[in-house]
């Protein structure tokens, strides 16, 4: 069963490497959003420091959402999804594999890019570290929860907009505690509490949401 999860992660990573434009567009979106804010609001260190956690987290969240519609759409269009549903392992495990692969090509690079962008906002080293850590913990939750929306809107016209509408309310807790963690570090309060809740959300997103996603996929395929 672990082999089946590994197989799907390996296949999706290989596909992502052959279609690098998708990966690059997500990262570029994040870079553009995060770089336009300091230019727009002006070079005031105090104001930028205050804005940084929210702007960077919202940027990463929107960038993740941008990549969601593609999560199952290609597999659905070429018939691979039917084969995945008919594979002898539980569909939930297959979805965990897809979510992990999605995180590796969207969440992980976003988290690694964030500290570089954070420098533009005059963030201190400890705040940059918390930002990276909060994104590393929070983005798996975004991928896992987003997969439910992607599965529900499979095959619908205008599915992209619908995914955002469905998923956004569920993303709000992740955003609040993610940005809150960075904010708490900036103000010197310590981010442990925020990060713990974020960790709980991530565990839910990666290990529980996939079973809901599996049910949504079965409905979409009928």
């Amino acid at each position, binding site marked *: 069963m672990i*082999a*089946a999860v590994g*197989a*799907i992660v*390996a*296949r999706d990573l*290989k*596909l992502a490497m*052959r*279609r690098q434009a998708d990966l690059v567009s997500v990262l570029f979106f994040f870079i553009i959003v995060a770089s336009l804010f300091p230019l727009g609001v002006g070079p005031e260190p105090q104001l930028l420091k205050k804005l940084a956690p929210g702007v960077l987290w919202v940027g990463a969240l929107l960038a993740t959402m941008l990549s969601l519609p593609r999560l199952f759409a*290609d597999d659905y*269009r*070429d*018939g*691979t999804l*039917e*084969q*995945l*549903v*008919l*594979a*002898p*392992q*539980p569909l939930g495990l*297959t979805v965990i594999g897809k979510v992990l692969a999605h995180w590796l090509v969207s969440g992980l690079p976003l988290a690694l890019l964030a500290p570089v962008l954070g420098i533009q906002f005059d963030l201190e080293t400890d705040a940059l570290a918390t930002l990276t850590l909060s994104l590393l913990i929070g983005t798996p939750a975004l991928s896992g929860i987003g997969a439910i929306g992607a599965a529900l809107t499979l095959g619908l016209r205008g599915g992209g907009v619908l995914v955002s509408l469905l998923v956004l309310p569920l993303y709000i807790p992740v955003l609040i505690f993610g940005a809150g963690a960075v904010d708490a570090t900036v103000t010197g309060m310590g981010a442990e509490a925020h990060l713990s809740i974020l960790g709980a959300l991530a565990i839910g997103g990666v290990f529980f949401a996939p079973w809901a996603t599996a049910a949504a996929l079965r409905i979409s*395929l*009928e």
Partner: protein
Amino acid sequence: MLEASNLECVRGERRLFADVGFRVEGGEMLFLQGRNGAGKTTLLRMICGLSRPLAGEIRWKDTDIHSLGEEFREELCYLGHLNAIKEELTPLENLSASAKLAGETLSEDEALDALEAVGLAGREDLACKYLSQGQKRRVALSRLVHEKRALWVLDEPFVALDVAAVGWLAGLIGAHLQRGGMAVLTTHQAVDIPAGTVRELKLS
């Protein structure tokens, strides 16, 4: 043994079929016939468990396929009218990926041998987007060469194939039936399966 009784399917306001039943034993093939839109693909998807009938039951070895779940899927090989291959991957990568995802072990030699059997020797390392329609279909069919599962469900397997490939595939299905396997398939072409018993079911 695959058995179905009293199957009924309704799409929107229209009843596609009702009271459909059949029985397939080892070494037998069920040949589904019917005009376009008669519900052949829908029935095949029901047999796989992808969609549920409005009424009736499909049983594998006397148990409902939905309660069997994974046990049934382990013995099922489904080839839909979509090829289920990735355009960016090469035929060899596609074949080994689909074997791994289906939980099977396929050595590289076996994979190369399967691709040679479908007439893709020399094109193993070319991305599938550069292949013709018929060649893509052959990549999808290469899965069947080393397939040992008992029940094959094939939706229009002969589409886009040339005459030689149609004969080859008929032989492959025949060999599968001879080993005691079962097959359910639809096609609009007249194809002679060299071995096994062929039952027909007409949807109207």
